[in-house]
């Protein structure tokens, strides 16, 4: 009792919150990339996370790949799914109304979920941790090495994206599409390619999150919806389109949930993220980090 006092519990909740929050942040970044380029909210974003985890299980356990190739293969497979979504569904519905677009991405997420259920069944799957199993006990706080991996993967992705968007031609072109597609086309940026790149990229990021989290949480076919919803909460809270905002908001949501479970009520844990989402939507729809003018320019 004494060795695990208030401080240790506090740290334990914080650690759990940051781990889950990092995943929410990655999902939120996935939303942002597609939104920035197309102004579409892809309701299937959460399913990419689920698919990433399950594909990694497939490549690692069934095909016997070592962990790193399995990770990359899973990310590639899900990126391909993103490509299919863009090429065969979104492009066909280019002129659809916002309402139809929402229904289309919901339908696609149902298809992904149903497909995953047929392929993998309803059982949860496990994946070994990237390095070492078990956990380190430090001052009464249990630290799973995999949690550090989750943070490392998230950190790497955020760093790479920042460099990509600020330094590379493609990244700058994608940002230009986001700012003004018509002008981007005029200066010779292939907007089509950018759109399809954005779908692949955001699917790949979702998948990476899925692979990283699976050793901690297991993965099964119907995890996607809730992850997607909370990721969207993070995206809105951080200001749609803002990468840094998404990161901060994701971590905030994760921490809020974890502390709610620890100190208030574990049953209402899931409601916390949603209530924050609603409050943000109702009172500050431009998010914590977005600017009001920028939000006013967007179609939605």
């Amino acid at each position, binding site marked *: 009792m004494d060795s695990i006092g208030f401080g240790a519990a506090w740290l334990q909740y914080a650690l759990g919150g940051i781990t889950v929050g990092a995943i929410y942040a990655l999902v939120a970044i996935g939303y942002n990339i597609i939104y920035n380029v197309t102004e579409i909210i892809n*309701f299937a974003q959460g399913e990419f996370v689920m698919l990433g985890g399950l594909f990694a299980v497939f490549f690692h356990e069934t095909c016997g790949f070592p962990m790193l190739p399995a990770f990359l293969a899973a990310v590639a497979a899900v990126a391909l799914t993103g490509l299919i979504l863009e090429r065969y569904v979104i492009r066909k519905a280019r002129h659809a109304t916002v309402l139809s677009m929402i229904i289309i991405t919901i339908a696609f997420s149902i298809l992904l979920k149903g497909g995953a*259920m047929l392929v993998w069944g309803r059982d949860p799957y496990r994946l070994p941790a990237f390095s070492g199993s078990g956990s380190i006990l430090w001052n009464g706080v249990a630290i799973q090495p995999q949690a550090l991996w989750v943070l490392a993967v998230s950190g790497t992705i955020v760093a790479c994206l920042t460099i990509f968007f600020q330094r590379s031609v493609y990244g700058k072109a994608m940002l230009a599409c986001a700012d003004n597609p018509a002008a981007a086309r005029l200066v010779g940026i292939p907007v089509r390619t950018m759109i399809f790149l954005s779908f692949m990229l955001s699917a790949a990021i979702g998948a990476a999150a899925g692979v990283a989290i699976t050793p901690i949480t297991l993965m099964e076919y119907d995890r996607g919806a809730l992850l997607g919803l909370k990721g*969207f909460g993070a995206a*809105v809270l951080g200001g749609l389109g803002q990468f840094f905002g998404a990161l901060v908001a994701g971590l905030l949501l994760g921490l809020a949930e974890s502390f709610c479970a620890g100190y208030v009520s574990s049953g209402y844990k899931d409601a916390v993220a*949603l209530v924050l989402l609603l409050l943000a939507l109702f009172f500050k729809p431009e998010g914590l980090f977005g600017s009001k003018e920028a939000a006013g320019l967007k*179609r939605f």
Partner: protein
Amino acid sequence: MSPRKLVPIGVFAAFMAAFPWIVAPFESVSHYTDVMVFAGIFCLVTIGLSLLMGFAGQISLAQAAFFGIGAYVSAILTGRFGWNPWAAMPAGAVVCAAVAWIVGVPALRLKGHYLAMATLGFGVIVHIILNEEVEWTGGPSGMVDIPGLSIAGTPLLSETAWYYLVWTFVAAALLFSYHVLHSRVGRALRAIHEEEKAAEAMGVPVASYKVQVFVYSAVLASLAGSLYTHYVTFLTPSSFDLMWSIRFVLMVVVGGMQSLWGALLGTVFLTFVGNEWLQVFADFEVLVYGAILLLVVLWVPQGLVVWMQERLRLRRAADLSRSE
């Protein structure tokens, strides 16, 4: 309404009235009356939703939550406090209207994706509350032994009686909605759907009308929930989860958003598909659902009813031109 339009409606009404007697002699379809009771209950939800989606152009992924609030208010008032179900029903509707108004005023300022996510988030929150407030709702294990309905002292037991009761409600909702659509409000709604800014500039109180329709759709869903409660006499939160909200949207979209008949047809069609005709698909059902939704939105965005009307018109025109 012109007499020409009244004829098909009359035929339809007669068919609906005779339905239980038509299917009764055929053993393999005699239970279709039971299915139609549920279809009718769902129709109440989708009529409201079609007004909101097709005419006001606003999406709601929270209809299952309103359906659930109506159901639980009815169940709690009758089961715990011994109210008469007929008194609990309007009480549920009032609660639902109040909740819808509180959520609707800020939510309907949002558009498109934001609105979809806000209603979705609200729906999930309601679902969590139904699960967690065990003292009141029985939690995930559900509420049992909810009283059934009775009319003038005789309890409603037979499916046929329920069929007529539910479809009377549907008919009333249809009539009322039709009336709404052909009033000032209806014209204003369509204006909102076409071009909101223009409507606003013309002096249409856009925000207020949108909230009114939202509240109306919530009230219909609440009535449907009350009927469902007293029909099944058992509730669990899982009958009111996100999947149901999506199903309601699907019913409206498949039938056709722009017409009340579309909501009706889509609902009856999908209820039968889900409960009778797709049994063979079992695990594939989710996939089939997703595929139907995707195909309809991509290729028949106007929905089946309008699509069939157009096809018929084209055929007739082609026949005419050929016979000339």
